[in-house]
């Protein structure tokens, strides 16, 4: 294909404006799943990320709830708006993960849930009379919370990421990072990265999906900094005349958005401000297509496997 120069202003570039208007009107969906042992600050982090009370904890669950005996999948949806753009955010929580004495196969309910969402979408797509806009309940991003032991990944972490790394975008984060001093943090991160490499686990952004050199260099920088060591908080304190989100201890205030204290702002920028759309695209173009191809090949046609989904959804 060759390019040709235009002889005057045509107005093709207004398509960007048209797209923007359209997206603003329709709004978009984003489904984020949080996985990790209880007490790692998952709900607090999600609240801090989206600067509102969107987690399961805020929708009527108290912190003293007993740990469930099996892994449950609980999803809570909210519609949040910013700058005229509406987003239907669904937070999928997995209480009971990794909390039992015997945690064999505790990732199976999660894997089942993810595949069920793909199945739902597939069925809608394959329908003769399709809806104009298929509701997208597929999990776009899975935040996996690593416990800040300071030594290495636990067996459970490795198993989970191995089993689910091919089905969904996994972003590992180091939880409760105010436990680690800066030196311990870098050491731990290096060790975790090495261990992930050794086990062949690819977390998002995956190297194989980098489209061009620009993408690669951007993503390389991000990959070097992962997993992000984060601290979450929904309380505000006064520091140097400013009101900041933080955690107040007897020896100082941990500022959540201060890049010297923790990498929360890096995670937020990465997740929301730059790669939100990319997460959705990778889920749709790659993970979903992999699932679809497998399903169509396996059965030589389309036989529905299970049509029941036992997740609870509460829509606001």
């Amino acid at each position: 294909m060759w390019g040709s120069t235009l002889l005057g202003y045509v107005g093709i570039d207004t398509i960007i404006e048209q797209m923007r208007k359209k997206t603003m009107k329709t709004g978009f969906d984003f489904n984020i799943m949080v996985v990790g042992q209880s007490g790692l600050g998952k709900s607090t982090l999600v609240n801090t990320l989206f600067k509102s009370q969107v987690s399961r904890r805020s929708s009527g669950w108290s912190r003293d709830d007993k740990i469930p005996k099996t892994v449950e999948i609980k999803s809570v949806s909210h519609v949040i708006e910013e700058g005229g753009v509406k987003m239907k955010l669904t937070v999928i929580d997995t209480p009971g993960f990794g909390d039992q004495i015997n945690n064999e196969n505790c990732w199976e309910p999660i894997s089942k849930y993810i595949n069920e969402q793909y199945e739902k979408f597939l069925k809608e797509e394959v329908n003769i009379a399709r809806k104009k806009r298929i509701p997208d309940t597929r999990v776009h991003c899975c935040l996996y919370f690593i416990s800040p032991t300071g030594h290495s990944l636990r067996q459970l972490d490795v198993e989970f990421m191995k089993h689910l790394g091919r089905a969904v975008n996994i972003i590992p984060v180091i939880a409760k990072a105010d436990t680690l001093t800066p030196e311990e943090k870098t050491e731990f991160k290096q060790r975790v990265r090495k261990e992930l490499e050794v086990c062949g686990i690819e977390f998002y952004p995956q190297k194989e999906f980098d489209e061009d050199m620009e993408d690669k260099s951007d993503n390389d920088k991000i990959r070097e900094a992962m997993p992000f060591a984060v601290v979450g908080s929904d309380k505000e304190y006064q520091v140097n005349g400013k009101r900041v989100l933080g955690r107040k201890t007897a020896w100082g205030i941990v500022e959540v958005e201060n890049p010297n204290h923790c990498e929360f702002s890096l995670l937020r920028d990465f997740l929301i401000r730059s790669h939100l759309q990319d997460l959705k695209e990778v889920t749709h173009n790659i993970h979903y297509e992999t699932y679809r191809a497998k399903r169509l090949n396996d059965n030589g046609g389309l036989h529905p496997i299970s049509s029941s989904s036992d997740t609870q959804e509460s829509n606001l």
Partner: protein
Amino acid sequence: MLIKLSSNFYFTGGHSRYEAFRKGLQRNLEGYVGFANLPNQVYRKSVKRGFEFTLMVVGESGLGKSTLINSLFLTDLYSKDYPGPSQRIKKTVQVEQSKVLIKEGGVQLTLTIVDTPGFGDAVDNSNCWQPVINYIDSKCEDFLNAESRVNRRQMPDNRVHCCLYFIAPSGHGLKPLDIEFMKRLHDKVNVIPLIAKADTLTPEECQLFKKQIMKEIQEHKIKIYEFPDTEEDEDSKLIRKIKERMPLAVVGSNVVVEVNGRKVRGRQYPWGVAEVENGEHCDFTVLRNMLIRTHMQDLKDVTNNVHYENYRSKKLAAVTCNGVDTSKSKGQLTKSPLAQMEEERREHVMKMKKMETEMEQVFEMKVKEKKQKLKDSEAELERRHEQMKRNLEAQYKELEEKRRQFEEEKANWEAQQRILEQQKLDASK
């Protein structure tokens, strides 16, 4: 006044005084006797002997156990050259012990640290407490055997005196694994729960967490180590303060940092320094004082008097119940050797007697049987004999009858022949 010192400390010189003593009242001495020196003698002897203390640390990896041990005893038990168990990857729960000899102010302490790497780290942690229980029981058994030996000169005390259980600072409550472990170990060893890496929690979160943990501990009826109440006011205030702060939230560090010109041990963060020995930052000083400075002896006493005695009575009851020595211990167990032998002899004699009577019984029975059999066959023979006799007689009679008939026939025939002859003769005339 005669003040006679005997083993009973009785005073003569006044009926009333004697009465008072018999009632057990304390009396003032008339002069300096000198047995107030007794504690010093005990002290000197113990110092010469040295002390032993065994401390066990249990918890998931990465909770700062090794760092805490280093901080408590101000030595580098686990250092860069001898990395602690946490640096190694393990597939199953191991129980490892390291001994170190610490000297301070002329007092020697043989400190044994028992570590449990791999605890709670696998995906399936069922029965990860079993190696720990086995270890504690085996140490108690060793002591039991040593106690029962004839030659008891050397009795090393390797029993676990205290178990520090590290709880992960989730902020919510106890995990199922924590509850299971403490339930199984609270009657074998003194369990002291600690909140590890307490610099993760803000003061409010810490309070809530502690309350939640204590509530759950009471719910599940877990008996953690109870500080004994003393009579003196000083100590009881201290003890009450400790009890309020249970479980203790600790932070460990052996790195010295500078804070406001002072050198303290702590952890340096970009937002401040968490001081290890600052009572407002964490409960490390409380733990150290309690463990080493005030309650070390009490921990040993409770282990000896309560946990060890429980183990011992359970073990011995099992042996005597069966009547047969089923335990694999090498030494004798219940009484002195002579009494044991006497008992064994008696047992043996009784056994022999029983066997004898049994055999006699069996013999009798057999004799009776045989007699019966013989009688039976005799009767049988008689019967047959009779029968045969009768048969014979019957045959004889038959034969007689036949002969008679034959004779008759013969006589008839002869008579007929004679008649025929006569007729013939008559006819020829």
